[in-house]
């Protein structure tokens, strides 16, 4: 797995998980629903970790997503048969849950999570330590985790329709989250999402098997440059020459630390800035 330099921090949670998985394997102390919950948590943790990678492994992600779906299905069947079970938080969430394809799911997330967190707080104080360390997760979280990881894996191709970035309320408004499960209407987040899907747009307009037109390549790169927020800012407003020289120079270190294509874009900017400097200085 190629990470973007992100280190996995060794946390208490990970140590707990190792202990829990041995407990699972010895199969003495954990009941079936607890085991299922443990597996579910491990799956979601892995999916979350994969989301942070630049290029998650498609095979593994699909296998884990299938496992989550399987558990989801089982839990759904159980909850439809028995309204009362160990984790009422989940039951409450699943009553409001209308179906995996329902467009309302993603939008209900914040309230859904808050609702069953409240339930589970009551629960945790009563149950034994193993349950306390398990994170109770709702169906909504699971569906959106699967949705978002698989959407992110949709690298390319002109075959699939372009993903829609804003929930429109019609049949498939799956909002692709790239920062946690919160749904925010901020410009900032939208821009961040566009940044991730900027590459989708680039790829959607080309086919790997056809020759790329040079114009198309540069056209797409230009678009992503203006949309992302870590690249060189566009032309500076005219100021006194000394200030104007210093400010662009300050932005260059941030350019140098980002990826290679940004460096290419920065170079074209450099020549533009030179040109502006000439005009300003009048040389």
């Amino acid at each position, binding site marked *: 797995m*190629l990470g973007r330099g992100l280190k996995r921090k060794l946390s208490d949670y990970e140590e707990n*998980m*190792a202990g829990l*998985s*041995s407990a*699972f*394997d010895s*199969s003495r102390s954990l009941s079936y629903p607890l*085991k*299922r919950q*443990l*597996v579910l948590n*491990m799956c979601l943790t892995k999916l979350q970790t994969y989301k942070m990678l*630049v*290029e998650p*492994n*498609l*095979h*593994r992600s*699909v*296998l*884990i*997503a*299938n*496992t989550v*779906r*399987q*558990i989801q299905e089982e839990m759904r069947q159980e909850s439809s048969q028995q309204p009362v079970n160990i984790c009422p938080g989940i039951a409450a969430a699943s009553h409001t849950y209308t179906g995996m394809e329902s467009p309302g799911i993603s939008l209900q997330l914040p309230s859904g999570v808050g609702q069953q967190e409240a339930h589970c707080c009551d629960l945790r104080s009563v149950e034994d330590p193993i349950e306390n360390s398990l994170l109770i997760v709702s169906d909504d979280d699971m569906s959106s985790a*699967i*949705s978002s990881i*698989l*959407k992110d*894996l*949709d*690298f*390319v*191709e002109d*075959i*699939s*329709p372009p993903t829609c970035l804003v929930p429109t309320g019609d049949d*498939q408004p*799956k909002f692709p989250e790239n920062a946690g499960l919160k749904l925010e209407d901020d410009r900032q987040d939208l821009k961040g999402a566009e940044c991730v899907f900027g*590459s989708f747009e*680039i*790829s959607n307009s080309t086919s*790997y*098997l056809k020759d790329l037109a040079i114009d198309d390549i540069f056209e797409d790169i230009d678009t992503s440059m203006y949309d992302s927020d870590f690249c060189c800012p566009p032309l500076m407003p005219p100021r006194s020459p000394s200030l104007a020289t210093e400010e662009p120079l300050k932005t260059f270190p941030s350019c140098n630390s980002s*990826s*290679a*294509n940004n460096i*290419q874009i920065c170079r074209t900017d450099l020549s533009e800035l030179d040109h502006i400097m000439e005009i300003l200085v009048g040389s």
Partner: protein
Amino acid sequence: ADIISTVEFNYTGDLLATGDKGGRVVIFQREQETKSRPLSRGEYNVYSTFQSHEPEFDYLKSLEIEEKINKIRWLPQQNAAHFLLSTNDKTIKLWKISERDKRAEGYNLKDEDGRLREPFRVTELRVPTLKPMDLMVEASPRRTFANAHTYHINSISVNSDYATYLSADDLRINLWHLEVTNRSFNIVDIKPANMEELTEVITAAEFHPHHCNVFFSNAENVGGRKSWHWFHVELCVLSAVFEEPEDPSSRSFFSEIISSISDVKFSHSGRYMMTRDYLSVKVWDLNMENRPVETYQVHEYLRSKLCSLYENDCIFDKFECCWNGSDSTIMTGSYNNFFRTFEREAQRDVTLEASRESSKPRAVLKPRKVCTSGKRKKDEITVDSLDFNKKILHTAWHPMENIIAVAATNNLYLFQEKVN
């Protein structure tokens, strides 16, 4: 030395190619038996080493493309040179390996050093002669088949017509002609219109050894059962689906993951097919689609450790498997540098270890045993003391003789049947 990522004998078994994580290919050649060194028959020595793939950077997606060689497949030899296909995640290359043992001497226009001679010094015309020189093995890239795979290539397979080959990534299979690099035909595409509906990926694809219009691949997770599809290439028609009904008693949370196929190999006869999943190897008769004819448990003792193996990602390890030349025995790898062979007729199996300590030259390998019950006998190893970092994923069997190549991380072991 880098981690070995693929091992493959050529059609005669005289050459053994290995690919590693650093993009290098190392080819070993079997020593010929000579009177002066009678014991050297069967030894493999380095024949050629070359850098097949370099790391690349995909600027559009800001991704690094690994140079690790995923698969090597030899082409049958048609002239003095040898050809092989090697692939990384995105690009397949055709390499030509040729020998040079003669050098031309006595050029008219240049010196022995290669410098051009002064024209006035050329007083007579001579015919260059060929003189023997030290053997030099050259590897040169002849074709590069690129830009046809969006996802990671996991398999390549040469057709029995020796003119075409297929390459498979997670979601698509392409068919190539060896002479044509700017075009490939997409013959299988399992990518759904909506990626969220994706439930299955392609993990292996192989042409039938004799029927040039038939190949196998796994695709289509049908109702939770693993299926294998038999395609006819001309029309790309699904001809047969091989699936085994799930055993409800052995169902667990990890059933989905452990039933994922990591390798498929046709028998040399073309009559059987072998699939490897996490815990077992299954042999299928191509005439019988509803269940495998034989199932061999490779390391059943791991079934009770699945959660831990899932937690440390070992459950995703992709083990390969192989047939011997006569299809009577199959071999596959396990953990702790163990590998297992199963004799089909005799119903015998053995566990062996590939490690420096247990492999003295010419010594017979001692069978190993993993202790599954509580009481550990002498020389047995408990499941908990197995080293899961020492995994044997790649093995190969000589096409005709009982010589096996076993890759243990960054070491290659060659074992031979002891002839008394």
